[in-house]
């Protein structure tokens, strides 16, 4: 391999972390050259697995001195290219930092290492009647560190919010190697700037998390999961707004169009009808009496908005199967065409039906196949272009279609990304939402904290 990082520097890295935690083979480099994002990849110079925060601090100082970049990585499931290597970088693999350090039942908090897998935390806290709501589709493999860095959402976002609503404290290695701790177990805390929130969603560009304090809540007593089938996407879209205007906040309202339904059914064989236009997967949770009452109201609401059928899951297993199937949606779409370029636009909930119509029109205009699904209750849709990376003409049409989808979303008062982050994939479009002055402000912050631009450079925006 042609290296940019000198052998000397590699030897120093090896001294810092131990040679068993430094991988430089070509095979290793290739297998850390990607994340879940299509069409982007880059070989790192090396993969490093630090075992203590002091090692991380030393590595960061070395990077400043020797001018190489550091890209933090959790499980590499990101969908905007956050953990894809940049030229002349080492991958800082945090996936082995996988200990749940403490579950504090008096304060309802948990200290975790950043490499803890999201669903493992779910299982551990649920054993003692507690609940950690954020549940991205990738929860069986993605890490809490990645979740915090992307401010990830999930299926339960509508009622419970996203990752940022559950982060109470962070321990962070800064781009100059200093280590700080921000936030804590106090429910209220207004001492100084709110640094903690500032690191949430920073996509590995402002600091490396080494410890994360999360808020837990009591586990809801019971839940009910429903499926509603529709003949038109507009009906499904209107149902979402109708339910919310009835002052019911289900924990989940997920939308799947026909293309997605077919793919999901082909993978999971759970008996979804493949000839319907679209469906909503809904869940309410809480005290049993409230759940019953709200479920009834939702069924009624779906029917009023022309649902052709509403089904209620009869057992917990059935409900879990439905949600698991939904989580497979994105990957299942790759059954149709191999390259799935997925977007993450979010619009105000009241605009869901309009946005769905626009997506359909744009898909037609550019002659690209788009499957759409998403967290409809959050106004967050994932129109997914089904293409083949080997067909360059199709890829370029897809790119044009996206640009137009972004513009429409912003026009409706929405954003280009609701939960996947800007990373590499969307930085070109960032200005559409934020404007150039805001990007300049972000640059000022980045430069102040990371003058040598060593931490995940070129992500979110260019310097």
């Amino acid at each position, binding site marked *: 391999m042609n290296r940019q990082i000198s052998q000397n520097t590699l030897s120093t890295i090896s001294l810092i972390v131990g040679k068993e935690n430094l991988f430089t083979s070509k095979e290793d480099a290739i*297998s850390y050259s990607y994340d879940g994002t299509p069409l982007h990849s880059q070989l790192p110079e090396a993969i490093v697995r630090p075992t203590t925060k002091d090692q991380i601090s030393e590595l960061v100082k070395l990077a400043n001195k020797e001018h190489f970049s550091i890209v933090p990585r959790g*499980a590499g499931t990101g969908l905007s290219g956050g953990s894809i290597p940049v030229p002349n970088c080492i991958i800082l693999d945090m996936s082995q930092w996988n200990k749940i350090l403490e579950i504090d039942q008096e304060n309802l908090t948990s200290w975790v290492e950043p490499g803890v897998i999201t669903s493992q935390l779910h299982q551990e806290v649920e054993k003692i009647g507690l609940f950690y709501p954020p549940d991205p589709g990738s929860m069986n493999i993605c890490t809490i560190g990645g979740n915090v860095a992307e401010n990830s959402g999930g299926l339960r976002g509508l009622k419970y919010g996203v990752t940022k609503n559950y982060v109470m404290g962070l321990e962070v290695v800064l781009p100059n190697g200093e280590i700080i701790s921000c936030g804590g177990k106090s429910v209220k805390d207004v001492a100084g700037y709110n640094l903690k929130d500032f690191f949430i969603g920073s996509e590995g560009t402002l600091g490396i998390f080494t410890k994360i304090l999360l808020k837990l809540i009591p586990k809801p007593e019971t839940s009910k999961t429903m499926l509603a089938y529709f003949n038109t996407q507009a009906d499904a879209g209107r149902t979402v707004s109708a339910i919310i205007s009835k002052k019911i906040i289900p924990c989940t309202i997920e939308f799947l169009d026909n293309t997605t339904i077919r793919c999901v059914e082909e993978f*999971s064989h759970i008996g979804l009808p493949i000839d319907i236009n679209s469906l909503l997967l809904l869940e309410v949770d809480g005290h049993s009496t409230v759940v019953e009452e709200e479920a009834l109201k939702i069924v009624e609401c779906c029917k009023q908005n022309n649902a052709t059928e509403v089904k209620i899951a009869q057992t917990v297993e059935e409900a879990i199967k439905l949600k698991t199937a939904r989580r497979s949606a994105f990957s299942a779409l790759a059954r149709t065409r191999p390259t799935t370029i997925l977007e993450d636009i979010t619009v105000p909930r009241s605009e869901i039906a309009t946005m769905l119509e626009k997506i359909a029109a744009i898909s037609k205009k550019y002659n690209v196949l788009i499957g759409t699904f998403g967290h409809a209750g959050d106004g967050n849709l994932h129109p997914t272009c089904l293409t083949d990376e080997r067909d360059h003409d199709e890829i370029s049409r897809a790119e044009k279609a996206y640009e137009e989808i972004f513009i429409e979303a912003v026009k409706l008062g929405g954003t280009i990304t609701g939960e996947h982050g800007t990373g590499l994939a969307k930085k070109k479009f960032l200005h559409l939402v934020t404007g150039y002055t805001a990007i300049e402000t972000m640059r000022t912050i980045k430069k102040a904290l990371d003058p040598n631009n060593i931490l995940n450079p070129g992500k979110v925006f260019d310097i």
Partner: protein
Amino acid sequence: MKTENSNFSGIDIPSDDVLTNCMHCGLCLPVCPTYAITGREKSSPRGRIRLIKSVAEGTLDITQGFVDEMNFCLDCQACETACPAGVKYGSLVESARNQIRVQRKDSEFTLMMKWIFLRNILSKKYLLNIVSKLLGIYQSSGLEAAFKNSLVVKKLTPKLFKLQLLSPRIDGRFFDEIYPEIVLPRNTPKYTVGFLSGCIMNVAFAHVHEDTIKVLLHHDCRVIIPKKQVCCGSLQAHNGDFDVARELAKKNIDAFLKHDLDAIVMDSAGCGALMKEYGHYLHGDPEYSEKAKQLSGKVKDLTEFLYEIGLKVPAKQFSHRVSYHDACHLIHAQKISKEPRDLIKSIPGIDFVELNEASWCCGSAGIYNVTHYEDSMKILDRKMNNVKETQAEYLVANNPGCLTQIEYGCSQQQVNMKIVHFSTLLRTVYEL
């Protein structure tokens, strides 16, 4: 993809379409036993696919590191089951191994093991029989006990010592020495089924075969065991030796299609999985392509077959606690997991307890426990922890490799549990 730069060559190369089909989402990582051991992407399905793709694109040579990763993979295909995109991972790793073999890139130890086991002993019946007889004599003569206890052996070659504990017990009489070509049930036959005696099963699991035959006869089957049949070729194919596998497949096609069969019933998951794939391996063969499909269409796992025809109700209650381990080649390769469970649960009196991580490989994986002993044992440890937790009296596993491996785990850890094939359980239940 620029195939002109590819470092693969010939016809049996990993498919470009399958490689592109992987959208690197990572959803297969949590089910991969080798990724669980190292936590390194290159030992994960997603990493391996990218490595294979890199060789196909010519950006990586068939390096030692590449070969190691391909061989480190268990080919358990848990990743295929987990993959929502439907990536046929097994076909990729098997083709990659085929390329490694054709291009002679295997390490000497692996080459030797593959040559001894796959090219010779297992695919040449007379050799297997001779070796097995010798091993049988050795195991029953007291020589084995002497060997096991000899301190010299334990000290000098700990690996060899452990390996020989892992070798299956050779039955006193081979299966095809016991049974004639056609076996008739007591009642008027309702079905005519073909039966594969196989290689390892024939010599080391003759008792399981016998149990299966008894169960089939009890269900009014006329059983045909074609004399001209050979090993199914699965160990060869999974290790990328497609040439030998195809030769074996053709012989079996000739042997079985001679008879008019309702089904070909398999009691070894690995053999069943491969015979269902004959159509795929012989695709395009002018003479055998169609015949292969025809044969594959008839192949059924015993549980699949019994589920279809309906299990006879046993005369007595069987009041025991029973659990079930999914053989990779049943659940992942053949997608069979409901049938065996439903059948077991339907036996009156049985207290069925689900095994945690039942679909996680036991580490046997063909000759993996020979070529990768240490890793195989790590995987077995995880299995054993779950096995112990069930506190079952019987654990059902429908593949010879799993039976040997888990039994080995039990003997190492002094676990008192009967590790049985479903046929064996049924024979006990029916008191046949």
